């Protein structure tokens, strides 16, 4: 396990570079992000350990970061003052090369379009998602959620699909191909707290699972292999997976275990059933959603298209080295499947191998 101290700054988000397996970015904030400066660290993984290659200081706290998918040296950060900033890490200037200030409140997530690579988005506590073109000084679109939106993403499979979770306990999906009618591209608003449906054709007594009260959704992630599967998590401590083709069906899987709110979930880039989570309970946990074939299943494997599991998922291991809220976790895209980075309010970035924490059953 490698470690780096973000001295004086509490981590909020960490992301591996999509271009280099030795580069990690961390968005961090002084004073737990309540008041004061932010700092975006660019860390290099070297033979001598983790070294800071560069950092950018910002006026207000930074809550999320995302690497450009088009340019290996450019990176986004979302700030507490409502601005979205784009930095070029090769420049000696301490300032961003572009800053967009349209959100009225804290920007809590930024995400680059993984397919078309020419746009990115931001989501904010002001109840909107904004879509941006890095060459344009103004946003190219605004998608209202009317609810504090902690997390928004482009689908990794389709450049026109945008998903978001927000404090109203809903997963929304916007399709930019639909006409911008009164619904503002909104094609789906799925209640995360809804009860799971009975599996089709299941006999026997009704399931004992009930709907739970709505609670703030803080994070979500698209599965990298199953293009319609999204995992969500938040204040009610449970991680849920949904198939957006069957919103009325309720969650496919519900994973219980975290003792406090879950701040981040991330599907494995290597295995279709494995995801990582980071929580206020100071742990990172690795889970299977119960759909995987032992040993790892590739895309298109049998059973992937029709996941029938209403659960069967389980925790496969946990990393308990953080000593404060864990706020960010991300997988390394390269090399052996299992390397990841996590950051938290303990001013530490940990780089570790998921396989090292998995129990014998994993």
């Amino acid at each position, binding site marked *: 396990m490698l470690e780096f101290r973000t001295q004086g700054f509490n981590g909020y988000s960490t992301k591996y570079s999509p271009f280099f397996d030795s580069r990690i970015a961390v968005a961090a904030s002084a004073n*737990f*992000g*309540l*008041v004061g400066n932010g700092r975006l660290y660019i860390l290099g993984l070297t033979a001598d350990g983790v070294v800071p290659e560069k950092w950018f200081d910002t006026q*207000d*706290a930074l809550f999320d970061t995302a690497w450009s998918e088009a340019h290996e040296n450019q990176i986004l950060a979302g700030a*507490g*003052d*409502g601005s979205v900033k784009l930095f070029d890490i090769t420049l000696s200037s301490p300032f961003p090369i572009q800053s967009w*200030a349209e959100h*009225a*409140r*804290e920007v809590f997530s930024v995400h680059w379009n993984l397919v078309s690579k020419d746009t990115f988005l931001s989501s904010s*506590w002001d109840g909107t998602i904004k879509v941006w073109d890095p060459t344009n000084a103004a946003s190219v679109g605004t998608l209202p959620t009317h609810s*504090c939106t902690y997390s928004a993403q482009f689908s990794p499979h389709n450049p026109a699909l945008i998903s978001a979770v927000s404090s109203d306990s809903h997963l929304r999906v916007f399709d930019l191909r639909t006409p911008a009618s009164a619904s503002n591209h909104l094609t789906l608003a799925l209640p995360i707290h809804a009860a799971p449906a009975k599996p089709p054709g299941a006999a026997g007594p009704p399931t004992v699972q009930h709907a739970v009260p709505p*609670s*703030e959704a*803080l994070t979500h992630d698209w599965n990298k292999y199953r293009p319609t599967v999204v995992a969500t998590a*938040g*204040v*009610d*401590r449970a991680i849920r997976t949904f198939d957006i083709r069957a919103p009325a069906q309720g969650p496919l899987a519900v994973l219980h275990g975290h003792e*406090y*709110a879950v*701040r981040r979930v991330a599907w494995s880039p290597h295995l279709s059933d494995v995801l990582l989570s980071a929580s*206020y309970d100071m742990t990172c946990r690795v889970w299977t959603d119960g759909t995987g074939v032992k040993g790892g299943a590739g895309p298109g494997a049998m059973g992937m298209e029709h996941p029938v599991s209403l659960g069967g998922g389980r925790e496969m291991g946990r990393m308990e080295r953080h000593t404060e809220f864990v706020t960010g976790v991300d997988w390394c895209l390269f090399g052996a499947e299992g390397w990841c980075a996590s950051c938290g309010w303990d001013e530490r970035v940990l780089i570790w191998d998921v396989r090292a924490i998995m129990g014998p059953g994993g």
Partner: protein
Amino acid sequence: MANQTGRSDSAQERLSQVSGHLSSQKRGRAALLEQHPDDIVVTCALRTPMTKGGRGAFRDTQASDLLHSAFTSLLSRSGIDASLVEDIAVGNVLAPGGGATEFRAAALAAGFPVTTAVKSLNRQCSSGLQACVDIANAIKAGMIDVGVGAGVESMSTQYGPQAVSEFSELLDSVPVAKECKVPMGALSDRMARDKGVSREAQDAFAAHSFQKAERAQKQGLFDAEIAPVTVRLTDPETDEVREVTVSADDGIRAGMTAQSLAKLRPAFPGEDGSGSITAGNASQISDGAAAVLLMKRSTAQRLGQRVVGKFVAASVVGVAPLLMGVGPWKAIPAALAKAGGLDPADVDVFEINEAFASQCLWCCGELGIPEEKVNPKGGAIAFGHPLGMTGARQVSTLLTELRRTGKKVGVTSMCVGTGMGMAAVWVAE
């Protein structure tokens, strides 16, 4: 834009956002312990001593005078401006006319201004609790801001057959209605037999109550909740009137054991002379008064009142008249459910009125409440059950004990004659 608002405002908002992630999912006990401005809180709860009916130091004292004493002590201990108290509810069972007239007069005499309203109410043995709950609900509903829930009973002067009027032919013609007039001792004896609560178990429970009360009294654990009362007392032999100050319960007998209680004769013997309920394993007939000052937490903070606990939820249930003793068994789960889905294990202390050892024992057993959580300072078997007072008395007993031991969650409950039960959930602070 966020950065145009004050910096401290935005920091505060971010803090509440993050704390919302951590707190909003609290359920059960954790949620209960949270403090909110609209909580209904207790800032003072006290009681007079309880003395034996007909023989104790209050034998010549009217209920109104006991109430007056509780009121004056409440005003002086809490330091509340009496003119801020908008309503007083007094639970009482035996006074003719409900005591409405003399209780209003007692409030005025104690220093409450004419603007403070007073009512009396009667839900039998739960009257004192009902009074506190009524005041709490009136505050919650916004009808009043500050109120007093109280209870008083002078069983010395008012206990007797006149407490129940003659049943009409109509009532006597309906079997379940007629059962309402079966004396509680008799029906409890039958219930003990039907439910299989043995005489030995009852005596052991009763002896334990005496022992706990004796120990608590010796250690001075009642002192914090008792406000001493000065009364005039006529010596029955010399007719000499003297003034005495009473500061302790007089019903607590030292050295009681299950063996000594086993010698007592059944109080309600059947035709064959059988029966398990005795004067030793049933509540004592006593006199006393208690008062509880209630308001919202925000009001308490504004007035500088020290919060000693909060009222969370209450329940009232009905049961068959002949099974009135099972009331707490039904009322306690209902109150716990209303308090946010608590489990009996979430509760630290239960104050369950010991109307009869048999029914209290049975209820605790059915609910799975461990013995050490029930009436840690003893109960009505040891120190008495002035009917209307008990519900309000339990609040001061409970909160004092919870605060002394650093515990938090408590329940008060009692069975109610004619087949009811009441329970309330409180949190000490």
